[in-house]
């Protein structure tokens, strides 16, 4: 009876995961979908704790289980609640790494059981394969996610050396070779080889993410996300547990597709991202060769005048806006200009910020109405009739090199055609290139003026200037 109830719990869990994911891909139902999946997860977890049995034996160590869950819940809940909107991407990466670590630890313990249960030469190959798969994928995902997390919050710098890709491939081959050896020719060294595989997999995870440029991190996190899904599915194989299997494979498949969709939004291929054309310094050369000419600065009071007397203004937000937490000041500026009869809208590039949708979330936090946010295609139609485009901390998404310069690493990426507008005002902290590390011709064009400073400070001063007019 109890086992039948457990089967029902797992069935409910599996269905809610599918339903939740389906609802998450539609804006109207997304939030409910997330809650439904969470509900299914709770049912599956409680069912496992109280109803699971193996060989007629119920689970023990309740104090440890509940202790662990309590600690995890408190830390997870608080860090998820406290994290700033700008830091969301690295938080997702961190949680993903935790899932990978979980799969890795399960494999370690289960292998240990196995070594004690069977004589060294008779390790059952089928189970060893699954344990190793969970171990390798889980630890690559864990180590990779930690590096991605460090890169996004600036603790880890891009790092690559010549021949790194070859080194990575060799590393991977060694891991696979050791795994095949362990499965095919089990011996007394099995434990040592197992830990060697673990260490090399962690190392591979680190080197896998190291050379990939920061701008591509969302894609990498999405990929590692699907890795962790597969690692979880390995657990499902191991325990013949249907909810782990369905949940894991579902995320593995959906995550892979999502990764490809993200690449498509940037008009780049996955191989291109993974080989890391942004990361290495080699390609930065061409842009530096040619003389960029000079740029002109604009004062706050001039900006205030130009914007107040415009009839149509577009704001292009970027990561700089997120870093400065300037979304509220930005909304205030928009309201002030609207009160003066200026038509103000936002042009949102699909990959502005560090993650797709980053800017939408940020501006929604500041209560900017939904209909003021225009997607790239709509905005591009509007630019020719726009008086002023104000760019707040965005760079690569408005770089004309994506259209004009085939040697540019971002060549082919769709961009916002801000140069079609009558005036372009760019707010940046300095002339330093953007996240992709390439120069932007836009800044040197005659219709472009630079307004240097922290986005929040500049916007507040600008608001004060406009009020004084």
């Amino acid at each position, binding site marked *: 009876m109890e086992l039948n109830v457990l089967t029902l719990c797992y069935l409910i869990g599996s269905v809610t995961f599918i339903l939740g994911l389906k609802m*998450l891909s539609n804006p109207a139902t997304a939030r409910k979908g997330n809650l439904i999946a969470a509900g299914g997860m709770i049912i599956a977890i409680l069912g496992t704790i109280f109803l699971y049995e193996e060989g007629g034996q119920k689970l023990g160590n309740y104090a*440890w289980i509940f202790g662990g869950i309590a600690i995890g819940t408190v830390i997870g809940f608080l860090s998820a609640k406290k994290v700033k909107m700008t830091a969301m991407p690295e938080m*997702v990466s961190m949680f993903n790494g935790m899932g990978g670590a979980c799969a890795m630890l399960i494999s370690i313990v289960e292998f240990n059981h196995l070594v004690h249960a069977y004589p060294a030469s008779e390790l059952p190959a*089928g189970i060893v394969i699954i344990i190793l798969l969970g171990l390798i994928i889980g630890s690559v995902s864990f180590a990779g996610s930690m590096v991605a997390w460090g890169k996004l919050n600036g603790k880890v710098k891009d790092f690559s050396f010549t021949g790194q890709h070859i080194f990575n491939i060799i590393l991977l081959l060694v891991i696979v070779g050791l795994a095949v050896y362990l499965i095919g020719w089990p011996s007394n060294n099995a434990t040592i080889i197992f830990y060697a595989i673990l260490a090399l997999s962690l190392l591979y995870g680190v080197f896998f993410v190291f050379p990939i440029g920061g701008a591509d991190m969302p894609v990498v*996190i*999405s990929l590692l996300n699907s890795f962790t899904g597969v690692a979880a599915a390995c657990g499902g194989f191991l325990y013949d547990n249907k909810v782990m299997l369905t949940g894991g494979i579902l995320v593995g498949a959906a995550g892979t597709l999502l990764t490809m969709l993200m690449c498509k939004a940037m008009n780049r291929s996955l191989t291109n991202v993974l080989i890391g054309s942004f990361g290495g310094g080699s390609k930065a050369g061409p842009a530096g060769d040619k003389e960029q000419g000079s740029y002109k600065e604009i004062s706050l009071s001039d900006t205030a005048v130009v914007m107040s007397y415009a009839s149509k203004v577009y704001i292009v937000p970027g990561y700089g806006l997120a870093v400065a937490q300037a979304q509220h000041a930005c909304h205030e500026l928009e309201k002030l200009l609207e009160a003066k009869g200026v038509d103000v809208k936002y042009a949102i590039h699909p990959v502005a910020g560090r993650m797709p949708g980053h800017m939408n979330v940020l501006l929604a936090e500041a*209560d900017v109405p939904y209909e003021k946010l225009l997607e790239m295609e709509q905005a591009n139609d509007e630019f020719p009739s726009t008086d002023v485009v104000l760019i707040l901390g965005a760079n690569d998404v408005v770089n004309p090199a994506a259209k004009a310069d085939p040697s540019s690493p971002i060549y082919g990426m769709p961009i916002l055609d801000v140069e079609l507008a009558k005036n372009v005002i760019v707010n940046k902290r300095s002339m330093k290139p953007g996240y992709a590390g390439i120069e932007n011709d836009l800044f040197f064009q005659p219709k472009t003026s630079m307004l240097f400073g922290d986005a929040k400070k500049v916007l507040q001063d600008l608001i004060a200037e406009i009020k004084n007019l």
Partner: protein
Amino acid sequence: MENILSWITANQQIIYIVILMIFVGIEVIGRVPSVLHTPLMSGANAIHGVVIIGAIIVMGKAESDNYLALVLGFIAVIVGTLNVVGGFVVTDRMLEMFKKKRPPQTPPKEGL
């Protein structure tokens, strides 16, 4: 050959689930708008937290003298819970932002 065939027969249920789930996973998110990429990734991240069930099983059947299983199992339960709870809460926070702006958007749509 014989081995492989008998393995497929023995595990056919699981193989069916894997294949069908791959298609379901692709089908289900096929038409997602790019604004939802981040929340969707975060939601999927929370769902693979289901790996915690494996951690609970490891922890629950660890003998009291097997310190490796106890300690690693305990850590696995903690990090697994982090993945689940953190994942769902972060996703909810992201989507909360979207919800706020939907009311003004709906009326004009109905007007059309």
